[in-house]
C-alpha cells in the first residue's frame, strides 16, 4: 500500500491538472481556448494550472500566430506522459 501511494503524483491530485494532462495525452496538441472549453474553467484558473505543469516539465508550449492573434498551443512532454502513466497505474493498483 505504501509503495503504491508513493507512485501517485502530487501534480495530478488536482482535477483540472488531471484533466489537462488527460486531454494532452490523447491529442498531439491543444490550444489554450480548446482546453478552456473542454474543461470549462476560467482563463486565470487554467493559466495557473498550466504554469504549474510547465514547472514540473510535464507539458510544453509553443506560441503561434493565427493571423494577428497570438495563440498558445500546449503538448505533453515525454516526462509528463510517463508520469501520467505511472499515476494511472498507481490508481489501478490502489483500486485492486
Amino acid at each position, binding site marked *: 500500500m505504501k509503495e503504491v501511494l508513493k507512485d501517485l503524483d502530487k501534480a495530478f491530485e488536482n482535477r483540472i491538472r*488531471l*484533466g489537462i494532462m*488527460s486531454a494532452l495525452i490523447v491529442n498531439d496538441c491543444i490550444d489554450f481556448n480548446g482546453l478552456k*472549453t473542454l474543461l470549462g474553467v476560467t482563463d486565470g484558473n487554467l493559466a495557473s494550472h498550466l504554469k504549474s505543469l510547465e514547472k514540473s516539465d510535464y507539458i510544453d508550449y509553443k506560441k503561434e500566430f493565427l493571423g494577428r492573434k497570438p495563440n498558445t498551443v500546449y503538448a505533453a512532454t515525454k516526462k509528463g506522459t510517463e508520469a501520467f502513466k505511472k499515476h494511472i497505474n498507481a490508481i489501478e493498483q490502489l*483500486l485492486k
Partner: protein
Amino acid sequence: MEEKYIKDLEEIKDIMNRSTRFISLSGLSGVSTGIIALIGAFAAYHTVFKKQGYLVYDAVNIDAVNVKHLLLIAVGTLVASIVTAIFFTSIKTKMQKQTVWDVQTKRLLLHLLIPLVTGGVLCLMLLMKGFVGITLPLMLIFYGLALVNGSKYTLDEIRTLGLIEIILGLVAFQFIDYGLHLWALGFGVVQIAYGIIIQLKYKL
C-alpha cells in the same frame, strides 16, 4: 479515498473521449436525412417509371429531360439533408455546451469527406458517360466507407452503420434492377432506424 480515484478515472475517460471524438451527433439528424432520402427516392422513382406500363418494368427510359429532373432531385435531396443535419446537430451541441466548429468536428468532417467526395466525383463522371444505374450502388458503398473511416472520431455505432451501407451497396451492384429500392433502404430506412437508436441511447 478510493471513491476519489474512481471519480478521477471517470473524469479522465470523459475528457479523453470528449477531446478526441465528436459526440454531439444527433439522432434526429439521421431521422430527418432518412426521411428526405425516402422522398428523394420516391420522386426519382416516379420520374423514371411514371410513363411506363407494368409489363415493361425494366425498360427504364432515361432521356435528357429525365436526367435533368433526376439531377435536380439529387441536388435537392443532398442540400436538404445537409441543412437539416447541421440544424439538429447544432441544437445538440448547444445542449451539451460544446462548440460546433471545434477540432473534433473538423477531424470528423475531414475523414468523412475524403471517401465521400471521391465517390461523389466518381459518380458524376459515370453519370456524364451515361452509366446512370451503377451510381446508386456506388453512392451506398462510398457513403459506407466514409462512415467507417469517420467512425473513429465519433460514436461507435457509426462503424456498423457504415458496414451495413457497404453491404447494401454490394447487394445493389449484384441486383442492379433494384438499385433505387436498395438506395432507399440504405439512405432512408436504415438511416432512420440508426437515428432512432442513437437518439434513444444518447438522450441527455
